[in-house]
């Protein structure tokens, strides 16, 4: 066995992560510098950053094969927490997401994300698995579905959607042909197009075109048509059968930005903050608190708005580039890793980060609904920072041992 050297770390990824943490610390300081509430939060964030780095280095030093062998127990353990939070969770904003363990408030969905990635990686690493065969899709599907449903019940739609997205990316990485992937996702497109356009003809057209181009085999074709046909049959009837107030509930659920009393307002304030920053920004600590005083979550979910306002397009783009570097290096780790489990785990971890970054940033520029997901490494919050540390630690772990089979 080779001795591990510090030189084997993925330095660009590490620098990007530390850079983002630094930007986060400075921005938390700025966002909470208004006299009044939250003063001094940056000191706690600094402490959390230290803890996160410490935990990351421990995580990185344990051989990833140990994670491989612990994947299923860890997954089961995380599900227990997800169930527990539904019963004993403390609620905030009408959702039960946190488990109060006394010394720390802990969000089980974060643990579940990492554990699910590991369990999926272990399952998909099975050499007997052939994703071209329909029935081999199901065990991984089930692994992702259980935490998805449990998190959805909290309810935390934003976080729960990370599970299917991770699953799709890992399916792809494990060798599922793109055409199969497209067909497997067709009911999702079916539902999505129905809610966007209000009619099923759009989907029927697209689906027909896909069938012509990809020409699936007869049994697959029949299964697909039956699956989508039944979705298409049931969907409008279910919709018509609902009461007005139930429809309204679903609409607000799917598009919380429509809620005129809360989140629509935050998005507009966020856009004003970013837009008024211009190219060069208003200067560090000089964001007009006018606009920001209206932004209730400016040091957590809407921290990127503060970056945009004070540091302008340059600052915002710097953050974008740091994230791009982090994620691209992450996928590179996956590409270079010769160990099946390790490579798959890397893809899952990076995709989870990618999802969080995109959902949060799109929200702050007004292109996505308010979902309550923090920005990884930047937003204030102990649990999130430690979880991000674990994710980076695992990726570095794989980078350190990239030559091992």
């Amino acid at each position: 066995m080779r001795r591990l050297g510090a030189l084997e770390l993925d330095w660009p990824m590490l620098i990007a992560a530390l850079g983002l943490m630094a930007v986060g610390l400075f921005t938390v300081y700025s966002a909470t510098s208004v006299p009044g509430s939250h003063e001094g939060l940056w000191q706690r964030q600094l402490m959390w950053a230290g803890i996160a780095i410490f935990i990351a280095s421990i995580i990185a030093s344990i051989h990833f094969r140990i994670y491989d062998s612990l994947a299923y127990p860890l997954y089961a353990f995380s599900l227990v927490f997800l169930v527990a939070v539904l019963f004993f969770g403390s609620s905030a904003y009408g959702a039960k997401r946190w488990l109060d363990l006394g010394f720390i408030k802990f969000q089980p969905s974060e643990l579940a994300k990492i554990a699910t990635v590991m369990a999926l990686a272990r399952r998909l690493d099975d050499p007997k698995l052939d994703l071209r065969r329909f029935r081999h899709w199901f065990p991984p599907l089930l692994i992702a579905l259980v935490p998805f449903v449990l998190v959805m019940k909290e309810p935390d739609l934003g976080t729960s959607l990370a599970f299917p997205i991770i699953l799709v990316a890992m399916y792809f990485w494990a060798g599922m042909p793109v055409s199969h992937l497209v067909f497997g996702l067709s009911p999702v497109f079916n539902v999505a197009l129905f809610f966007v356009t209000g009619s099923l003809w759009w989907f029927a057209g697209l689906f027909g075109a896909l069938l012509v181009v990809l020409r699936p085999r007869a049994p697959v074709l029949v299964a697909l048509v039956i699956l989508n046909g039944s979705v298409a049959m049931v969907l409008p009837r279910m919709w018509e059968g609902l009461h007005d107030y139930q429809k309204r509930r679903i609409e607000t659920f799917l598009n919380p930005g429509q809620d005129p009393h809360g989140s629509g307002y935050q998005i507009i304030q966020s856009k004003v903050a970013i837009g008024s920053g211009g190219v060069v920004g208003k200067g560090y600590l000089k964001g007009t608190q006018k606009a920001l005083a209206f932004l209730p979550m400016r040091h957590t979910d809407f921290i990127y708005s503060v970056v945009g306002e004070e540091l302008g397009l340059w600052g915002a783009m710097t953050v974008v580039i740091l994230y791009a570097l982090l994620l691209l290096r992450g996928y590179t780790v996956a590409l270079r890793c010769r160990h099946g489990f390790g490579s798959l785990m890397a893809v899952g971890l990076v995709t989870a980060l990618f999802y969080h970054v995109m959902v949060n940033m799109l929200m702050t520029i007004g292109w996505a609904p308010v979902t309550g997901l923090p920005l990884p490494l930047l937003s204030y919050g102990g649990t999130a920072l430690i979880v991000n540390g674990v994710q980076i630690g695992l990726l570095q772990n794989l980078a350190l041992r990239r030559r091992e089979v």
Partner: protein
Amino acid sequence: MALAGAVLAGFGSITAGLVRLQVGEHVEMSRLARDNHIRLEVLRAPRGSIYDCNGVLLADSAPSFSIVFRPFPAESLQTGRSLLDSSWVARIAGLVEADTGEVRTAVALANKTGKTAVLRRNAPFYIRAAVEEGRDGLPGVEVQIEPLRRYPNGIMAAHLLGYAGEINDEELVERQPLGYNPGDLIGRSGIERSYEDMLRGQDGAEFVIVNAMGRRVSTLSEGPPRLPVAGHDLVLTLDIKVQQALEEAMEDVERGAAIAIDPRDGGVLGLVSRPAFDPNEFSVGLTQERWKSLTGGGANPLLNRVIQGVYPPGSTFKVVTMLGALRYGIANAGTRLVPCSGSYQFGGRSFGCWKREGHGSLDFIGALQHSCDVYFYQIGPRLGLARLEQAARDFGLGERTGIDLPEEKKGLIPNEAWYERRFGAGKGRKGTMLNLAIGQGELLVTPLQLALMMAEVSTDGRTVRPHVVREVRGTGPLTPPRPARDHIAADRGNWKTLRQALALVVESGTGTAARVPGFAVAGKTGTAQNPHGEDHALFVGYAPADDPRIAFAFVIENSGHGGSIAAPRAGFVLRRLLLADSTAVRPPSTLAVATGDSLGGSGD
């Protein structure tokens, strides 16, 4: 490589968004940030209106003016604090004529939550004028237009319509996921409550630009306002002509109830409960004292006695006893029993007939016609508790009728098990059967149950489910709800005998005060003994007897005999409805109905 492509595409779109905001819209956004603030204002949706079956308006929402306080934007909080000293609060309270403490609480809450507080609803003109005049010295105080719930006919049909009031804190916690917000109206009783989901509209919203003092400058061009969507209108089965007649008939009643339903489909034609309340009071908001004076004391005016008042049925229950006896072959139309001598000896006790001098020998029809207690005393033990209970349950007594109004009471039809729980096993039960047969004892029914019973007698036992709403506009006609029970099984001959006896009650029996010239009316009087005071007077029936279009029940609490107190009121209502000439029956009423045209000719 696909995943890297996804990353680049994702961040490409973020970059595009940033460039659009920070370069393309920079000037506009800077302007918004520099001198203005954006505020969200709720555009309140009006509740659906309520109409009677002829289209006469019973409830609607009209624009009204509220005096509101809007919290200051954060950075002018300093200015705000210096202005909001106690003399300011006192001044505002004086201006809008509200309690200083309440104003202080409302303003404090508004500043904490950032949401607008209503200081005074439905402000009269002089208050609005004073606020507008002094607006420069009154930062944050504004006049706002909001829909106000109106009931143009005041107390008329108040218990059926119910009332809507401002949502309270507990309801808010429970209903926030459904989109309720502070200041929203919510149905509290009657139709307003049972059809809350239909009546409630969907609030809209618009973003407005306000200056540093919190005053509205203009609306934000970006993002069009979401227009409010009005709630669904309801059309009732209620007929204002019937309602008006019932209201007048019950005008001088202190405590009581009257209900009329259509026996053909169970639709409620009119519903009166006394004492009544004016639902308009609730729209504006009640003071604490007013609420206490309404709910405290003996006669709660908010109680809908038609569905929530439970009364002993008295002799009206003889309808049940008679049909039971006929069905089980205990007696037939011509059966004669021991003649009535004014009392009946049973188990060493004497049971009196209401007519001290006695009825003599009567057949079954005559016994009901004259409400002879002695005859029914003899029926009771022969029928027995189980069969009597069955006969009562077949009419739906002892169960909720399932009417679409909230908080209906069940009443009570005792059975063997009930008596054993209550008095212990095997206690003297025979006297009980005598009392039950004439509707005394532990029986309890609601006026609605009695009217429904008569409706079903009038149609040979065809059951219907009583209901008040005929149509929810915009969702198509409602399919009439299915009755909760099967049709009542009895021979046609038995029904005929019963109906013949009921018609004779009004023609020449105890209910002659309900006669209508030229029409046959069927009915039954009742006088329910009441341990707490005077007897309750009851009269139930249907008309015309040969082609029933209305079934009704009247209960007048603590007033005396059914034949002399309740039956004349039914007669008044029926004459008003059945005779084309609706005048000259009673002195003109003081009850005014806003939409008088609908009352002109009662052609039916």
